[in-house]
């Protein structure tokens, strides 16, 4: 679990982030100059959270309280991931290193780190976040600079890359684990309900995501608890 292993494993995430943050840069360039847009990516390193933050900044009526609440709910999943990852790191991964590297805790980096067979070391985790961080920041910068050049049909297509990456993380696990498949389907059904059932449509997007994930994961844990000492095939108890 060396630094170089992490850098290598982080390459596909970095490339993917470049494409995704490019579309964030394009969206941001409509409101802010490119250095300011880039600085958002350098300090946040979140996808959905930044997009929502940008919308609040663009809204003339947007307040700091609203920004804090929206960011809190949209990014609350990072707390769940941090708890989860804390179960997986090597004993040498101490407090100072955790404070320093916590920014690297994104959906994809987390998914990769937590799927490792060995305990995750600080060096490996630092290596893992290098290229995604560079990709995310430089992608935003490039997107913000050429935001005005590309036609809308191209920028729209690039915007869907984010979801493509999410699918690429979830589907392989659904394929090998029937219990994950069921949990994911529950989450999707719940998410659709928040969008299309009129009584539930008042719930904000960030809050809806949290509720869906909590409900589906709690049901999964209650009905399909993972086996003890089985790290790699977590969630698959349908034997």
């Amino acid at each position, binding site marked *: 679990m060396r630094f170089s292993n992490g850098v290598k494993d982080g390459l596909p995430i970095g490339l*993917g982030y470049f494409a995704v943050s490019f579309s964030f840069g394009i969206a941001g360039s409509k409101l802010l100059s490119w250095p300011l847009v880039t600085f*958002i990516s350098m300090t946040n390193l979140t996808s959905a959270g930044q997009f929502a933050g940008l919308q609040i900044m663009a809204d003339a009526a947007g307040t*700091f309280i609203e920004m804090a609440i929206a960011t809190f709910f949209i990014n609350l999943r990072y707390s*769940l991931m*941090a708890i989860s990852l804390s179960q997986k790191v090597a004993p040498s991964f101490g407090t100072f290193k955790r404070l320093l590297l916590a920014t690297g805790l994104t959906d994809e980096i987390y998914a990769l780190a937590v799927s490792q067979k060995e305990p995750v070391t600080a060096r490996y985790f630092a290596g893992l976040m290098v290229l995604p961080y560079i990709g995310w920041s430089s992608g935003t910068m490039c997107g913000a600079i050429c935001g005005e050049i590309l036609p809308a049909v191209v920028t729209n297509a690039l915007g*869907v890359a984010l979801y493509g990456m999410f699918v*690429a993380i979830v589907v392989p696990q*659904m394929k090998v684990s029937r219990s994950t498949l069921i949990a994911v389907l529950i989450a999707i059904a719940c998410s*659709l309900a928040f969008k299309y059932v009129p009584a539930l449509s008042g719930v904000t997007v960030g809050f809806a995501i949290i509720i869906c994930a909590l409900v589906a994961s709690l049901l999964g844990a209650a009905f399909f608890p993972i086996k003890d000492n089985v790290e790699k095939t977590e969630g698959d108890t349908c034997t």
Partner: protein
Amino acid sequence: MHLKDYCLFLLVMAGVTYLLRAVPFVLLKGKIKSRFWRSFLAYVPYTVLAAMTVPAIFYSTDSKLSGACALVAAVVASLLGLGLVGVAVVACVTVLGIDGIMLLV
């Protein structure tokens, strides 16, 4: 937008995000003993990503059709074994193709 407002918004956004990541990461040093909570945490990343993708992907492009097709194409590409970037490219190309055709029609 004034630079001062931008700085305050950024501070709030980045501060909240960092604390959400760092505080639980630092506080939890031991292993969670409960099988239930370990199972719960194992499911979280997949359920979060699924809820973020559906139905948001239908509204991320010019038409619901291209968004839905991108989702189907991404799932198929992933089932066929393509990786992170490969699946993202397939989704982008699908949207580009369908929205491109719609522009021409």
